[in-house]
């Protein structure tokens, strides 16, 4: 309290300035001097004249104080006085103040945190020069049933595109995970190869050292590298002398030529959300068009639009020079998308929905506090009437009550900053890895604080306005008369009811969203992937092209690891596959069958596996046989198809012995089907099972398809021991292989649904928070109702009403409010749940079961919240109640 008072004094001296006091001094001194002069003129000695003047003048200080008092009637003085008064009032009712402040803090806290996230991810401009002109260039591929809207382009196509005039500059990049050695412990790093013009295009310069020289990406001999600020700090000890230091990436030697600024994380776009730690020059071959592996970013020329640019790029690929490209053959459509959209487009919708949800929480919090204030305002009518009688204008009363809510809101806002900080940290910790772009740019900075401050003011206005206006509307006489009815004006009661109805409706909307997402996640979680991941330990490795050039070398490595793996105690069915289900890589393509056309819409996964793979994953054999040792290199080529392929290609017929090929250009690539296995979902539980054609890894003849391998083994004993054995088996086979992580397959499976799980848990948290707030609000309303009607209830009890009747009477009103709230909420939820459609799996946005369940649980929770205070009514002692006034 004392602190508040000194604060007030300081404020006053600050604003009302010393100048006024100074002028006052001068003014009074002038008066005194005039009087003295006159006295002298009348014949007094100067000393006498002065004494007489002073005597007549009276106490100078009293006059000054009186003058100051007259001046003190300023808005600021009102404010200071109101603040002091508000603090006194709030301190008098600590319970009320704590609940109100905590509620506001919660509402503002989550809103501020959400603002920081939305701002960092969606609103801030990208940290590049003139970022609105930057755009990603995608190739749109439609080849048979295969469709891809954001595909890469080939090296050759990139050089064709570079002739563009609508783009003032284009740059290409690729990303991979590499093993960094030569500085401390070996480390897996996100590694991006970029053309030398990339950094100038973005308008970013290294913080230390230099970027790539223009020729670095053409000769292929400049083995230079840039490292991220993060890597520089964590791995190089933030040593400024890093320039010129040699490092090795996947065994190749590079020289560090610069450190990028902190937070620089390009390339990152929808496909790549991991911030790179190392950049090296990308060396391109203008004649290479066999594979489309390059992603392209460009800066639009002044005046050029994305649509015009896409058209121009297509015409470039169509021109005589570009016409022969394979890129052209497989679709040739180009798509240009603003870099920011490319980066955050996927999460934009969800983030806005979440922001809306958080806004709902803030609204519920505001409604709650407003309700509390209204309830309290009713108890203060006498005080307000007294003040009005003493001459306070209505405006002054409103002002004073707004000051009170402002104090509450500011206290809540300060607490909210801590909650927000904690919330942001929590969100960043819980958000699934590499699912949320631009996380480094999320921060609670000055703008965040400003937002909080604004929110405090808005909150104070919203929650203060209703009680202040209804409360200030007092009849001076009525509440002052002893024994008059203390009930609130009917208007206030109505406002409070509306607030509670609104709270219930908003909570119902949130809870419906949570219910739908939970149900969706539950269904997704329960989807059978078609294999048994429990206890399966895996390791994924990438074979460096430099070391493993031929297919024989690759197969040999696979054999060596497998041989060691089979000896690991506690493991069984050791096997290898090139494309692990729910792993890092996935390939799909078309195929042909002998004596007829394969269904054109059938895109199949084409994994190469060792013979024990199906047993390791428990994938059932439906017909024929699994692969065996005899299906080796040189033996007749065989394939096992999944159920869908069998049914679609040879409906009603026996697929065993049929022939198919996945590369009809090679005459000896025909495979004979020897078995049919159950369908699996190898990458997305939310999608239908993927048709599969499995081939024995020993019969794979294209080195490219064995660039990645995953070894897996089913642990029957200790998983840790098996994991250790797996790691050792790979290391013993080739100690120089890039590092890779051992993972449980079940874990990879769970990671694939981490996003839906995160969404569902987020909404459940929000909804529970709002529900708790609303319940407090309802309980408060009923409790107040009971207090207000103490006398009436006492009379009823005295006249013989049973406690049950009293509870029923009190509850009846709440029941009406709850029903209204639920009805309105259902209508709102019905209208809004469609926004969630994209995020739902196997659940309709208007799922009746969810709606019914949510409505019932809210009604139940609200009824309980109302019942607790209602029961108190039965304990009213008639005698005391009648004396209550």
């Amino acid at each position, binding site marked *: 309290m004392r602190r508040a008072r000194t604060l007030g004094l300081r404020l006053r001296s600050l604003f009302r300035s010393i100048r006024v006091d100074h*002028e*006052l001094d*001068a*003014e*009074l001194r*002038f*008066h005194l*001097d*005039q*009087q003295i*002069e006159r006295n002298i003129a009348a014949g007094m000695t100067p000393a006498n004249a002065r004494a007489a003047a002073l005597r*007549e*003048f*009276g*106490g100078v200080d*009293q*006059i000054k104080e*009186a*003058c100051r*008092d*007259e*001046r003190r*009637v300023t808005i600021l003085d009102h404010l200071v006085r109101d603040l002091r008064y508000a603090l006194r009032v709030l301190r008098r009712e600590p319970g009320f103040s704590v609940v109100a402040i905590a509620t506001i803090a919660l509402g503002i806290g989550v809103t501020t945190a959400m603002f920081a996230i939305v701002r960092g991810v969606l609103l801030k401009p990208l940290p590049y020069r003139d970022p609105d002109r930057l755009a990603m260039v995608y190739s749109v591929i439609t080849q048979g049933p295969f469709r891809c809207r954001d595909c890469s382009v080939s090296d050759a196509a990139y050089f064709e595109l570079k002739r563009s005039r609508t783009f003032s500059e284009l740059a290409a990049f690729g990303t991979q995970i590499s093993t960094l050695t030569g500085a401390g412990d070996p480390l897996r790093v996100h590694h991006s190869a970029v053309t030398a013009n990339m950094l100038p295009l973005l308008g970013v310069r290294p913080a230390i050292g230099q970027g790539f020289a223009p020729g670095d990406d053409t000769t292929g001999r400049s083995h230079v590298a840039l490292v991220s600020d993060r890597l520089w700090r964590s791995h190089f000890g933030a040593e400024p002398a890093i320039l010129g230091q040699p490092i090795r990436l996947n065994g190749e030697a590079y020289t560090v030529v610069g450190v990028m600024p902190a937070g620089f994380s390009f390339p990152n776009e929808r496909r790549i959300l991991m911030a790179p730690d190392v950049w090296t020059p990308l060396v391109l071959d203008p004649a290479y068009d066999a594979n489309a592996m390059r992603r392209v970013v460009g800066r639009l020329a002044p005046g050029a639009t994305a649509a015009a640019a896409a058209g121009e790029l297509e015409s470039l690929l169509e021109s005589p020079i570009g016409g022969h490209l394979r890129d052209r053959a497989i679709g040739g459509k180009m798509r240009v998308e603003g870099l920011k959209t490319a980066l955050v487009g996927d999460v934009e919708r969800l983030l806005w929905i979440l922001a809306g949800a958080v806004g709902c929480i803030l609204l519920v919090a505001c409604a709650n506090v407003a309700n509390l204030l209204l309830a309290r305002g009713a108890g203060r009518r006498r005080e307000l009437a007294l003040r009005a009688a003493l001459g306070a204008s209505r405006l002054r009363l409103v002002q004073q009550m707004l000051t009170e809510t402002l104090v509450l809101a500011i206290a809540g806002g300060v607490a909210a900053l801590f909650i927000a900080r904690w919330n942001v940290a929590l969100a960043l910790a819980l958000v699934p890895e590499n699912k949320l772009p631009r996380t480094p740019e999320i921060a609670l900075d000055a703008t965040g604080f400003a937002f909080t401050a604004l929110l405090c003011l808005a909150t104070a206005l919203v929650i203060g306005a209703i009680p202040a206006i209804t409360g200030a509307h007092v009849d001076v006489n009525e509440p002052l008369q002893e024994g008059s009815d203390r009930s609130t004006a009917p208007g206030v009661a109505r406002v409070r009811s509306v607030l509670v109805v609104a709270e219930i409706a908003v909570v119902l909307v949130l809870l419906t969203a949570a219910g739908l997402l939970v149900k969706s996640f539950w269904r997704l979680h329960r989807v059978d992937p078609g294999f048994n991941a429990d206890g399966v330990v895996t390791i994924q490795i990438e074979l460096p092209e430099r070391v493993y050039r031929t297919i024989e070398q690759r197969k040999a490595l696979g054999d060596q690891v497998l041989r060691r793996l089979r000896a690991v105690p506690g493991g069984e069915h050791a096997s290898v596959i090139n494309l692990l289900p729910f792993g890092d890589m996935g390939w799909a393509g078309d195929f042909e069958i002998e004596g007829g056309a394969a269904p054109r819409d059938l895109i199949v996964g084409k994994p190469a596996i060792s013979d024990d793979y199906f047993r390791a994953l428990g994938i059932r054999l439906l017909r024929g046989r699994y692969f065996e040792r005899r299906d080796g290199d040189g033996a007749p080529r065989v394939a096992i198809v999944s159920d869908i392929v069998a049914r679609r290609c040879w409906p009603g017929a026996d697929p065993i012995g049929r022939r198919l090929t996945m590369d009809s250009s090679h005459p000896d690539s025909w495979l004979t089907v020897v078995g049919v296995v159950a369908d699996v979902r190898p990458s997305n539980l939310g999608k239908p099972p993927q048709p599969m054609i499995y081939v024995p890894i020993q019969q794979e003849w294209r080195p490219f398809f064995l660039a990645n391998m995953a070894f897996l083994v089913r642990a029957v004993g200790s998983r840790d021991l098996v994991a250790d054995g797996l790691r050792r088996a790979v290391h013993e086979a080739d100690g120089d292989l890039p590092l890779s992580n051992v993972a449980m397959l079940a874990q990879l499976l769970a990671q694939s649904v981490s996003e839906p799980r995160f969404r569902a848990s987020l909404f459940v948290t929000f909804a529970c928070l709002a529900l708790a707030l609303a319940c407090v609000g309802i309980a408060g309303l009923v409790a107040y109702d009971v207090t207000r009607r103490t006398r009436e209830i006492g009379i009823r009890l005295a006249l013989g009403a049973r406690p049950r009747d009293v509870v029923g009477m009190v509850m009846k009103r709440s029941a009406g409010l709850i029903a209204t709230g639920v009805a309105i909420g259902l209508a709102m939820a019905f209208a809004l749940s469609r926004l969630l459609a994209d995020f739902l799996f196997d659940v309709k946005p208007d799922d009746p079961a969810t709606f019914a369940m949510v409505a019932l649980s809210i009604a139940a929770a609200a009824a309980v919240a109302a019942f607790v205070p209602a029961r108190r009514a039965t304990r009213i002692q008639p005698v005391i109640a009648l004396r209550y006034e």
Partner: protein
Amino acid sequence: MSKPTDLVQGTLDLLILRIVANQPLHGWAISQRLRLVSNDVLHVQQGSLYPALHRLEQQGLVNAEWGESENKRKAKYYALTRAGRRRLEEEAASWARLSAAISRVIETA
């Protein structure tokens, strides 16, 4: 010097407004002028005068400005604002009504 008559609460404001209506004056001059015009009947204490002046200034009825006095000293001069003039007219009219009524009661009752 006879005992100065106490001023009715509120009348001081009216008197001040009236006195500064002709020309801007400083506090000293206002007190002197009041004495002079009222034939030495109305004396105002500094303890009332200055707070009243500051109150009137705060209400926007008079303007205060620093100027030079007759004897070349800086003094704070008060002048009537437009709002002050309006107020003066109202107050003067109501005073006239009141005093006339009182006189009538005293003379005729």
